[in-house]
């Protein structure tokens, strides 16, 4: 009788002893930066002025939203890039996943080949495309001229619309494989009996796609979209190499402006405030996303 009692006692203190070092570490790693940034955002700490800082209340926040045209512009830019990129990644990813799920021969190797773009870093991806889009000696211009499709050396990053489109194109190239792999895994987890039953009842492939695949894939799609949405709000490396925010400031994303504020202008406090404005935005977007999701489900039910 004593042994189980001992085991029980051990069970009560052991969890804490076991968990505390790593959990304290994680808590520190999460809590410290969040809290310190929050504190920083109410000061006027500016490394280019000096190490002294004063408490200035919410002035950084009001400046960022009301008077900083560049930051507000970067929110608009981020939105303009996120919309088409997310849509294209979802549609292409879904299409590829559906195609791949039907391919019987050579599926692993084709999947691996299609997934390669997602493995390289954003910086390397941007570099490869930067070169192809180069004004002189770029593959696209050279080939276009030689084939007579274009008649001048075209600057693909020359106008804001083209530069944004190029950023979207590179991001779609880089991240569609992620969506494809997530959705492929989702499709493969749908039991095949459902399709067999539908076929036995005389459903066309189109019908079984709409009434089996899509509804059962909804959750996977939502999670994939959400991860991509969050990633896109952090878009930095790709911009840094591909356009450096240009032309003008038309491809400056929120992450890029915050980086400039903190590490080019050395306005640490202001950059912290910008970060918190972004957090607010991302939270709002996530909640909106979940709300729409719930609304849709309510309507469906």
């Amino acid at each position, binding site marked *: 009788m004593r042994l*189980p009692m001992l*085991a029980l006692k051990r069970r009560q203190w052991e969890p804490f002893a*076991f*968990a505390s070092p*790593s*959990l304290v*570490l*994680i*808590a520190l*790693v*999460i809590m*410290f*930066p969040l809290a*310190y*940034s929050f504190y*920083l955002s109410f000061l006027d700490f500016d490394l280019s002025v000096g190490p002294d800082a004063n408490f200035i209340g919410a002035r950084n926040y009001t400046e960022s939203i009301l008077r900083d045209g560049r930051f507000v512009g970067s929110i608009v830019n981020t939105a303009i890039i996120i919309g088409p990129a997310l849509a294209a990644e979802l549609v*292409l990813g879904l299409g*590829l996943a559906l*195609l791949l799920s039907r*391919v019987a*021969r050579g599926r*692993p190797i084709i*999947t*691996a*080949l*299609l*997934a*390669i773009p997602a*493995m*390289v*870093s*954003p*910086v*390397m991806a941007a*570099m*490869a495309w930067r*070169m192809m889009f*180069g004004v002189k*000696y770029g593959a696209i211009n*050279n080939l276009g*001229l*030689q084939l007579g499709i274009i008649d001048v050396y075209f600057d693909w990053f020359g106008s804001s619309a083209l530069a944004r489109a190029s950023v979207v194109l590179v991001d779609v*190239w880089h991240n569609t494989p*992620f969506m494809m*792999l*997530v959705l492929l895994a989702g499709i493969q987890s749908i039991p095949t009996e459902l399709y067999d039953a539908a076929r036995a009842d005389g459903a066309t492939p189109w019908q079984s796609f709409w009434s089996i695949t899509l509804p059962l894939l909804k*959750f*996977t799609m939502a*999670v994939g979209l959400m991860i991509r949405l*969050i990633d896109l709000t952090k878009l*930095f490396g790709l911009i840094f190499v591909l356009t450096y925010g240009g032309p003008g400031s038309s491809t400056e994303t929120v992450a890029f402006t*915050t980086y400039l504020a*903190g590490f080019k202008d050395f306005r*640490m406090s202001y*950059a*912290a405030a910008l*970060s918190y404005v*972004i*957090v607010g935005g*991302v939270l709002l977007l996530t909640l909106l996303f979940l709300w729409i999701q719930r609304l849709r489900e309510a309507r469906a039910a």
Partner: protein
Amino acid sequence: MSRRARWAKILQHVLLIPFLVFALFPFYHMALTSLKQDRELYDRFAVPLIIKQGPTLEHYTKLIRETEFLTWTKNSLMVTILATTASIVIGTIAAYALSRLKFRGVNSFGTGIFVTYLVPTSLLFLPLAQVVNWLGLADSKWALILTYPTFLVPFCTWLLMGYFRTVPKEVEECAMVDGATRIQALTRIVLPIAIPGLVCATLFAFTLSWNEFIYALTFTSSSEQITASVGVTSELIRGDIYFWGELMAGAILGSVPIVILYVFFLDYYVSGLTAGAVK
């Protein structure tokens, strides 16, 4: 097989071809550029899709002899291996604690870990820049080894929690009734079952730190301390001049190890995505 079914099969493969070309062409072009002689590379009338004047390794030899590329790669390797190892160890213990042990606040802790993924990178690295300065680690690769775990540990913990939950609790309890300690239960029973999860977390952590850019860009700057991704972009692009041959050689050498790793471990990668995304 009916004729129609066979045509459908062929059509599926044919439909995939444009996507394969789109996905792989940039890599082909990278490899091509890195192997082209400069006079062909900077010739407007040369066809960009093939090498006509003979391949050369001069960009690779230049990259290795005339730049600090080997040092950058060594730095990348050191930072990646140390940060990954530390994160996996801490993440494993934390994930085990969170998935097995029932105590108050365990759920909000899990949510908190996910929240770190939501917040912008700048929110984390502004304070970390201060810490790095206080510790006197400015412009040192040790700053990276210290700061990478701040995003790797939450990520590994989150991923591994999913795997540990799939290991039935009863197996461990049996062992513990038989006199095994908690640590023995973890190392002898749970970890061997969760090996796919560990491989997956290692793979993700390795890639995340190998490909990391923004921390490396802000915390290090001198040629002896920077990692490969920063070195290639900061020292092979001088103002408006791009040393394309060397840049692409660097990009190829920096990406090939990761790509090979993934092609071998693609199943683990996918299972990690689904553990994180689908469950």
